[in-house]
């Protein structure tokens, strides 16, 4: 027996629901895929350096993070060291592996927006004066990586 008009309508409504849910999932996933392919455009620019002197002196570097993709990105610390002058010369001002984001463990940069992220790293008491003069004369150069996560995928972004 042929299905009644009513059950045909209900089944068509079911088809519309299947289409709508899979289309919503597809659009969200495909835009994340495009964002992932364009992940190199996420840009880190050091905006400000500040030396906090004390018993345990730290250097605070403020980064402007620009995320031009269409999906939110989460930023975590990778490994980043601030150098005095050319990083290739290896004149480190901050102690490697002490760098961490100020506040939370990670920061979210919304799609198409720019956010500021503050990174703090310890400075050895011996190099505090050198660090201060490097900041004052604009010789401080950060070099290293941030860990960036788009949905469930991560990569290391060079700075």
């Amino acid at each position, binding site marked *: *027996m*042929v*299905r009644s*008009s009513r059950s*045909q*309508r209900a*089944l*068509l409504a*079911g*088809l519309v629901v*299947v*289409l709508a*849910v*899979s*289309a*919503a*999932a*597809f659009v*969200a*996933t*495909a835009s*994340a*895929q*495009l964002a*992932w*392919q*364009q992940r190199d455009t996420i840009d880190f620019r050091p905006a400000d350096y500040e030396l906090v002197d004390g018993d345990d002196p730290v250097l605070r570097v403020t980064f402007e993070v620009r995320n031009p993709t269409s999906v939110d990105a989460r930023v975590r610390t990778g490994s980043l060291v601030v150098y005095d002058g050319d990083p290739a010369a290896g004149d480190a001002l901050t102690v490697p592996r002490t760098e961490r984001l100020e506040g939370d463990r990670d920061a979210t940069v919304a799609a198409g927006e720019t956010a500021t992220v503050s990174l703090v790293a310890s400075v050895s008491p011996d190099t505090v004066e050198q660090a201060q003069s490097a900041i004052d004369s604009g010789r401080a150069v950060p070099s290293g990586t941030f860990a960036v996560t*788009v*949905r*469930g*995928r991560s990569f290391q972004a060079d700075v």
Partner: protein
Amino acid sequence: MSEDTSGLWKAMTHPSHASYGSRRDRLVSAVAVGLLTGVSAAMATYTLWQGALAPGWAGDTVMGSLVFAAGALVKLLCQNLKTSVLALSIAVVVGAAMTAAAAVAPYLLLDIGTLGGIALLPELRDVITLLVFGQVPLLLFGYLVAIVYDGATA
């Protein structure tokens, strides 16, 4: 002309009736149902494949169920067995083509070099694996379950 379009509309809004109807009605219902189920199966398969980039609610189970539901809807909408076989064939072909197109699309949209197509080979290998072990079996399973349902309630 208006009679023509109203006939088309009726075939699409009452696919079960149309699947028993004239040759043109059968064709219209099979093509409409096959296209729509094939497209939704392809979109769900793509999300299943790129699971790491999918939003939280679009998990593997949900997406697998969608492909299964699409397969069942082929037979439930195109009730006539002969018409439903044509609709399922269309759904499988359209689903495969759409999944392959979605895999290749980022390269074309973002103008990423493919080294004369060599870079696309791993993507297409993944697509074939997905089709053979995911999409087509799930579509077929849903379709067969719907046949059993129709047989049991006949």
